[in-house]
């Protein structure tokens, strides 16, 4: 994952809310959309982006009483730190799984400065 992608993901109001929503419990897209006031289409799109970037995965697939299957998403992000010091933005992520950016400080200025 490149800095630009990290910065784009992080500097997005929905992505942040989705990650907070799925931190301790797995939730369906509908639930996240309702609870965190995210338009449903944007919610699906963002969740897929987060899933592709490895921030989220499908914890379980449940079947509703109506016979519809529903994916329950859960955040894989253990912790995140965003630090702004001396005019420089940096982020660090820790994941529950092995990932190349685990625990590394990533500078965001170059991505923002364009």
């Amino acid at each position: 994952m490149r800095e630009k992608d990290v910065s784009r993901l992080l500097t997005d109001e929905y992505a942040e809310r989705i990650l907070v929503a799925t931190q301790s419990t797995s939730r369906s897209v509908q639930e996240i959309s309702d609870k965190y006031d995210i338009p449903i289409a944007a919610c699906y799109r963002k969740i897929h982006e987060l899933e592709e970037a490895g921030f989220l995965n499908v914890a379980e697939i449940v079947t509703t009483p109506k016979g519809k299957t529903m994916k329950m998403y859960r955040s894989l992000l253990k912790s995140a730190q965003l630090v702004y010091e001396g005019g420089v933005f940096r982020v660090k992520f820790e994941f529950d799984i092995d990932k190349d950016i685990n625990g590394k400080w990533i500078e965001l200025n170059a991505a923002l400065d364009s």
Partner: protein
Amino acid sequence: MRDSLNRLDLHRRDIRRGVAIVEDNMNPDNDGFQDSSRMLSPLEASQLLTDEYSAKILLATYKRKISAQEISQRYGIPIAACYRKIRILEEVGLIECVERILTQKGKRKNLYTSCLRNAYIFFENGKLRARFQLSTGQVKDFGGDWNGLDLMKQ
């Protein structure tokens, strides 16, 4: 001049939010959160920084005086969004208008500069915390405990 402008601005904010706002310099011993930003949740506070435009505006105004127009052009922020974000950042005290100049066309132009020295946003165990340190030395904390010790661990 500057003073009357400030008062006007404060007055305007009072009306909009319907609350009394205590000016920080009137009471230097306050906890740093006697103003409008007291109402922010940790998520709202952190989104002041993680919002792409806000982050760009904070970079643009770092140790610099710059107008909304220039920020908009330099960082590719639509002008209306730029004004809106500037107003939000100004209301919570992360940037301030330091100068009002007259352009050659006789238009007034506000120059802004960032008041944010350091910011920390931590997301752990599903909890979000944010700490802003302003150039005035004021510290604004949102959510959770901040004992200062965890800042050393990074």
